[in-house]
């Protein structure tokens, strides 16, 4: 590392992309924050290659690129442009560390791989190609949200188990149980009941999470044919959870856990099965809660229990897809009043029971009322069953609700960044379609000149589109029609990019603050030598903590918005 005091803060690697895609930049930063610069370097290399690469290609690319940077550094030093602006030297990682970094990425499902069998000089060889998934990488800061959700629905034990699995990426059954038990003992949180030990409570919770679809088994990628003999590198097979090895027990495994698993009580849990968290299930569950809240806010006063029933129906759809493995899109979404009763909260269920007609009839009436609501549309009746309300089938118009929410987000961002008039113009174009600027000015009750300024600003920011219609064959601006419109897909893309950029900037700012505040943290830890210094330090440290808290809150808010825009 160089002696330059300012060179310590370095958020990028030699292979980091120029920020043309905010999503990729954000993913790279998240990887660096969680796993360090070597793993980030490998991820950046995979991203830069595009498509899938072999390990040899990755090593080669990194080596070439770092050599180039080294030569550039030497040239700069020779020219002596500035002594201060020394390019920070990044130690060249070895092939083993690159392999280890790749393993980490695979462990956390940020990199996927494919195996193909090829014949080279009459010898069969298995070629592994690795592909980077930036969407998975940017979910790393969202782990606390999943843990929090699990805590609310499954309690402390479930939350601890999910936390362990998320931190490790993927784990064998025995390892997951042991580490969760360790964590619970450290937290000194009691088991759910006096009848069960920690181990039994964790295993019980584990089973429920698997049945609920929140934890899924890691499936092995099948070979094309035969074993080529050579393994890519040590450790890869362990991550895969080979079918044959599921029942095998490691000599280091805790015998108590193994015996519980082998007792037959927990049939779906084999000792060496490899598990990971099913992130999609969490997203679908969070979406169910959000859309339920949305429907409650829009129609709650008009239609009682609207929000609860929508949330219940969406939770059922998530369960069907992830727990039951129903891949049929149509059947996933269909539900009847009986199907969703188990997802209703107790107070809601009791209220429905108390009403005359019973639960089924009251739920049916509520759903019929909701079918009449069109702004936005919430539910459609798909099958009618006269006289048997419990057999009628409905489906939630999830995409319309999500689109409504996304539109609101885009409008809110425009309101916050460009003002009330810009938000109104956007809403008019969204509602009315394509219009000329004078018409927009009239509807918005804004002078024509101001409207044109706002339209051009929104156009520069890519929130709206412009279509020129020439009246004659020759280009003549005075006789041209300028028609403005909004494209939902384009606006959504731009909004997502803005949120990714903002989140990246917040994270970068936070990382910088941590660098700046290192001294205060260290002083705080070591204790002050003089009282005066301590007071000043305390004040600075308090302010530092407040600043960090605000940056963290901002990052959380942005991540929540990004979840709606990208993962719903």
């Amino acid at each position, binding site marked *: 590392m160089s002696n330059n005091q300012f060179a310590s803060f370095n958020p990028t690697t030699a292979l980091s992309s120029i920020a043309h895609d905010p999503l990729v930049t954000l993913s790279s930063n998240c990887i660096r924050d969680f796993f360090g610069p070597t793993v980030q370097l490998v991820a950046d290399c995979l991203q830069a290659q595009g498509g899938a690469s072999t390990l040899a290609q990755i090593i080669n690319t990194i080596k070439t690129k770092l050599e180039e940077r080294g030569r550039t550094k030497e040239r700069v030093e020779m020219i002596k442009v500035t002594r201060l602006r020394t390019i920070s030297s990044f130690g060249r990682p070895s092939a083993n560390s690159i392999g280890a970094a790749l393993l980490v990425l695979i462990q956390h499902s940020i990199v996927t791989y494919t195996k193909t069998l090829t014949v080279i000089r009459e010898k069969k060889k298995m070629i592994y190609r690795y592909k980077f998934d930036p969407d998975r990488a940017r979910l790393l800061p969202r782990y606390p949200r999943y843990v929090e959700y699990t805590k609310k629905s499954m309690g402390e034990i479930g939350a601890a188990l999910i936390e362990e699995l998320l931190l490790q990426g993927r784990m064998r059954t025995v390892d997951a149980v042991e580490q969760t038990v360790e964590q619970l003992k450290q937290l000194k949180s009691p088991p759910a009941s006096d009848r069960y030990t920690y181990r039994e409570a964790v295993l019980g919770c584990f089973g429920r999470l698997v049945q609920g679809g929140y934890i899924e088994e890691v499936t092995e990628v099948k070979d094309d044919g035969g074993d080529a003999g050579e393994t890519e590198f040590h450790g890869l097979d362990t991550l895969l959870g080979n079918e044959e090895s599921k029942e095998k027990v490691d000599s280091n495994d805790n015998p108590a856990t193994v015996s519980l698993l082998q007792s037959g009580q927990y049939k779906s849990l084999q000792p060496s099965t490899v598990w990971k968290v099913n992130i999609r299930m969490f997203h679908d569950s969070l979406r169910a809660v959000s859309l339920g809240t949305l429907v409650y806010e829009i129609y709650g006063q008009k239609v009682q229990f609207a929000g609860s029933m929508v949330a219940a129906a969406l939770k059922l759809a998530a369960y069907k897809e992830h727990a039951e493995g129903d891949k049929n899109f149509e059947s996933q979404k269909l539900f009847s009043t009986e199907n969703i009763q188990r997802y209703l909260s107790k107070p809601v269920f009791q209220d429905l029971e108390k009403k005359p007609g019973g639960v089924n009839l009251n739920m049916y009436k509520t759903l019929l009322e909701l079918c009449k609501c069109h702004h936005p549309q919430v539910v459609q009746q798909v099958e009618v069953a006269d006289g048997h309300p419990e057999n009628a089938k409905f489906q939630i118009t999830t995409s319309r609700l999500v689109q409504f929410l996304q539109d609101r987000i885009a409008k809110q961002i425009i309101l916050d960044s460009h003002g009330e008039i810009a938000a109104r113009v956007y809403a008019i174009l969204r509602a009315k379609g394509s219009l000329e600027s004078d018409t927009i000015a009239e*509807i918005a009750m804004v002078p024509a000149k101001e409207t044109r300024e706002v339209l051009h600003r929104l156009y520069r920011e890519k929130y709206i589109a412009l279509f020129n219609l020439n009246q004659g064959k020759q280009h003549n601006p005075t006789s041209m029609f300028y028609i403005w419109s909004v494209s939902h897909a384009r606006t959504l893309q731009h909004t997502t990019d803005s949120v990714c950029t903002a989140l990246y900037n917040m994270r970068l*700012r936070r990382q910088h603050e941590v660098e700046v505040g290192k001294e205060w943290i260290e002083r705080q830890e070591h204790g002050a030598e003089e009282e005066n210094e301590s007071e000043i330090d305390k004040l600075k440290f308090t302010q530092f903590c407040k600043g960090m808290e605000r940056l963290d809150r901002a990052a959380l808010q942005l991540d929540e918005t990004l979840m709606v825009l990208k993962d719903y």
Partner: protein
Amino acid sequence: MSGRKRTSTSVQSGRKRVRIGTAVKVKADPAAAAAGDATTAVDTTKVSQASVKARFEALLNEPQYKNGAPNKVIQENFATKEEQKYLVETINELSRGSRLTMSKMDNQLFYTIVDEEVAQKYQGLDANDRLVLQVIEKAGNKGIWTKEIRLQTNMHPQPLNKIFKHLEQRRLIKPVKSVNAKAKKLYMLYDLRPSKEITGGVWYSGLEFDHEFISELRTFVIQCIKKLNDGKGVTMTEIKLKMKQVKVSKVELTIEEVQQLVQTLVYDNLIEEGPLSNSGEVRFIAARRISTMCDFKWWDCLSPDFHFRPIRFEDGVILAAHELHHHTA
């Protein structure tokens, strides 16, 4: 005279030989008049310039000919030649005094009488003045740009400006400015009210858009919606009525103008459509608050130099800017 052909025309007794092209004064034949219609014999004695003029004015003042009497009707009412002779003089006299205007429609000539008061205004105007006045009159209440007048009348700017001054002094025309082009000078007839396109309508005060007035009206509408009918909803008609009662505006707003206001509030998500009233009109209610899952407000963090700016919070917490040496790999 050499070169001219003599036409031989058989002339009946009592009529003069006329040279072709010469105006002929025809006297009424007393014998024929006496032998013919009794009224004609009576009219012959009473027909005079004054009587023809009076009858002509009376005819044009009739309600059905308020917008002009066709030539056909004039000819029917003034059938005799003597009447027609006097009629020609009457028409000339009235035209000279600006008391008569002529127009053509569907190949027919129309005569319209002008009030004396109005006619007095146009007295003393020469042909150029009248031409400019005519061009401005054609533009109606939309007004016409000085450059357009120059193009249509083909006059130079200097004499045209003199004519403008003269006509302004006579209170025949007035200059106006348009909200869409404040630098342009438009002229229109003095008595006309400029159209909405020029003034901008109720929402403009002078030539400026009255943001404050609109803001007050919007606040008033929101208050109406929240407080009237116990918050159950208010129709546009009820809002308009309330505005009139409270006299929130000096000018009474039309239902379309109230609709414009209400529409902007809907687009701003401040109000929304509710149930229908008994009369089938839409009621408006206060919009429910919807959480958008977008609570972040520091959108200036998207600017390229965000990292090099310090962030200062209200309570004194400061996040220092990055040093310029950072961000190098």
